[in-house]
């Protein structure tokens, strides 16, 4: 068994997931490819969104892949870090906004 949970070489093996379930795997990759085509959003914008989401789901493979992709599509370091801050703000905000629920509950329970 592998000693490490994450191995950067595994990113290259991602397409191999079709080995265990071909039909769904292929559907996923087809969809994935279509999502990242240039559309109403540019490839650079999509890369930055993916980079931010990668930080939220804390996927090291996606962080690697979308750091490269962002560089290749011409994003600057500032843009990349701002995308990570957006993810961070939403993550933090998502916890904090539940504080209102906590306050509501505390108020309900309090005399």
């Amino acid at each position: 068994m592998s000693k490490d949970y994450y191995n950067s070489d595994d990113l290259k093996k991602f397409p191999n997931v079709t080995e265990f379930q071909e039909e769904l795997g292929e559907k996923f990759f087809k969809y994935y490819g279509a999502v990242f085509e240039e559309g109403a959003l540019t490839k650079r914008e999509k890369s930055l969104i993916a980079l931010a989401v990668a930080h939220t789901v804390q996927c090291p493979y996606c962080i690697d892949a979308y750091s490269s992709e962002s560089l290749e599509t011409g994003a600057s370091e500032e843009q990349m870090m701002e995308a990570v801050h957006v993810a961070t703000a939403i993550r933090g905000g998502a916890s904090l906004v539940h504080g209102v629920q906590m306050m509501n509950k505390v108020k309900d329970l309090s005399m």
Partner: protein
Amino acid sequence: MKSLKAEGHSLSDPRIQLDILNQHNERLKTTPKFEEKISEIGLYPLQPNEIEIFQINVGYMCNMTCKHCHVDAGPDRQEIMTKETLKQCLAALDDPRIKTVDLTGGAPEMNPHFRWFVEEVRRKGKKVIVRSNLTILTTNKFGDLPDFFAKHKVEVTCSLPFYSKRRTDQQRGEGTYDKSVSALKILNDLGYGTDPELQLNLVNNPVGAFLPGSQETLEEQFKKELHRSHGIHFNNLFTITNLPISRFLNFLLMSGNLEDYMDKLVQAFNPAAASGVMCRNTISVSWDGYLYDCDFNQMLEIKTHEKAGQHVSEFDLDKLNQRDIKTDQHCYGCTAGAGSSCGGATT
């Protein structure tokens, strides 16, 4: 920073560079050979379509020492084309099939015969492109060159790795960005970038071990950002891929990126880009007058095919047009993705 050559670095030896690309370790040994790859698509041996661009490397001396430089240029390099060799180039240019003269270096402006040569070539009615690093145009000694360029309608193609200061300075040295911006403003004031006769192009290459993105979208971004921050105009942006040779190869080795970078180039192999590589319409002349298939082969000391003539003094365009082009693993850099040549993406 010193050049690899001045440091006595082993990578200043082209044979060592090619050896690394071919057999540094198992991964590189098992990388498919470029020749096989182009055989599969019926392009081996690679041959010219028709040469129309005459690229002259007038010397390896440069006022800068950028980290990725495939020429290993710098202030410590002494190789400079003599007036005699320049005259041999002029004689070769009598062939009407050659339409364009592309001057490169080092900093081509540092050749002492540069101005005389540009005037002579223009007199022959050929288009002249100068590959300028921009910073040299902000020095006292060369500050009057923009006027000279405008007077002779020289097309100026200059390097700017990125539209932001941080990444530009990272590759080309502290202060480069600000100087480049001043030089671009001077060129703009002369009409470069707006007057159709005064073409101003920028060259973008990735600041690191990744491929350039789409030329079209990057051009849009560069135009928007440079105009927004500095009011700068230019005509085209050319994206070029860093070839794994010389100082960029050194960076790839030192940073542990070489194998992944080669994989990336091979995976991105594009048959359409392969058929549009610049060695098919360009010939490259070195400072000492030898002929090469391109500026990269020049740096790797891979001369043109023996039967085609190997020195500008024996220039024969018919023979050159029929020669086989010499290729090796570095050529993957020209065929990855949208392709890469001196004029940017090829597909």
